[in-house]
């Protein structure tokens, strides 16, 4: 399983043709305690870079962009049930946002791998 990262601090992990998407540890730390999140309905399709979800802390509201194109096949029920804490506790694990059925695998090539993302964050 490969994990890729965007400049907007989303991660995407591929398992077959299903991509799990969330926000990175760095993004979660920058946000602080999440007080609200809005996920898309399953069945909706997004193009790479579209506004897909919203995550809000006391400080600010942030858009979460689709890191790859695809159709939503599942959303994190914990987040849907307003357990926002799960995002802060494990943004790159149990705090995932959605699963997408990937439309175009080659889109992943343009994203950063773990080492490149770590370098990118260091430079911020």
């Amino acid at each position, binding site marked *: 399983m490969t994990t890729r990262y965007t400049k907007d601090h989303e991660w995407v992990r591929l398992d077959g043709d299903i991509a799990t998407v969330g926000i990175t540890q760095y993004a979660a730390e920058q946000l602080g*305690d999440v*007080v609200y999140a*809005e996920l898309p309905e399953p069945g909706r399709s997004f193009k790479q870079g579209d506004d897909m979800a919203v995550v*809000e802390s*006391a*400080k600010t509201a942030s858009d979460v962009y689709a890191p790859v194109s695809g159709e939503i096949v599942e959303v994190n029920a914990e987040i849907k049930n307003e357990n926002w804490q799960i995002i802060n506790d494990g943004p790159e694990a149990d705090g995932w946002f959605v699963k997408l059925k990937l439309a175009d695998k080659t889109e992943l090539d343009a994203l950063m791998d773990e080492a490149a993302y770590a370098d990118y964050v260091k430079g911020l």
Partner: protein
Amino acid sequence: MTEAGSLKTLPLDALWRARTSKFGDFAGYDMPLQFEGLIPEHNWTRAHAGLFDVSHMGPSFFALPKGHGLEGEAAHGKIAALIERLVPADIQGLKPGQVRYTMITNEEGGVLDDLMIARPAEAGAAGDLYVVVNAGCKHQDWALIEAATTGEADLVRADDRCLLALQGPSAHRVAAEVIDPALAEMNFMTVKRFAAFGRITVTRSGYTGEDGYEILVRAETAKDLAEALLAHPEVKPVGLGARDSLRLEAGLCLYGHDLDPATSPIEADLAWTIQKRRREARDFPGAKRILREYELGPARKRVGIRPNDRAPAREGVEIMKDGKTIGIVTSGGFSPTLNGPISMGYVEAAHAEPGHVVDLMIRGVPRPATVTPLPFVPHRYVRKK
């Protein structure tokens, strides 16, 4: 890591940086925004005492020229009459040591800034006023005051000093232990000078809804004061982020957001800041509109709004009723005390009654919300007999 660029840094910059604060630009100053986190800092201030550095603000002294030869009430009456050219509050009526919240208004009855004006308690300072304006407006405000009173009074900026706010239910105990027991005896909205940490000017006031103090201290002794306060187990540093959620819960206006040059004090529900003598004299900038709205009611009013679900409605969100726009959110976010979203905004007067249900247009979707009395969280100011 931090690129200050042309930003001004606070005199206590190093002290805050050592506490791993997040910084950000506010009104041209590189300000501490956050320490351990907005929500814990907010909750700490409501339960104990938070220390805020608000040295970006505009403290100043407005005084009759040296050798004015007046004493007591005569001196105060003269300086107060000068500043009353710009503000609608009764400043002449201030007792020694009293502080008043007011606004600089324009000829159209809008608000150019909100500010605090204090009459010093000390007889030797008769003919002085202590005036604290907002960071983003200070150059404008001081220029306006000087232009309106040229040759009649002197304005001395004090924004090279530090202004520290100690806020919260423990503030009085901390202040008594660290600074002077007499601080605990002060009434809310009063001012006093103390010979401690150099020479400090203390108002019992703040902008969090809590009891507390704002302390003007020279930059050379500010570090000693800040460190002494931070050494107290009841005190933690708090950034501007939590200051915003605290003032929003307290229903207090943030200039440039909830108040602006087109908004009148009456629309802003601040009629209480215009005392009877001034209403009768009708002698302040914008009196015509302001008093018309005072007498007949404004077309729109500032209200509290609680979203019925969990989605915060932030500044700029449209307020709708039956598909028609009736207002706009001017401040909004998350209330740690209420553990839910809160907003403040302006709505047409017909919809301003608490309990009225409106829609908030959040990302294109109308979401029901309820007009709510302000403050969201009761004030806990200390007023003694």
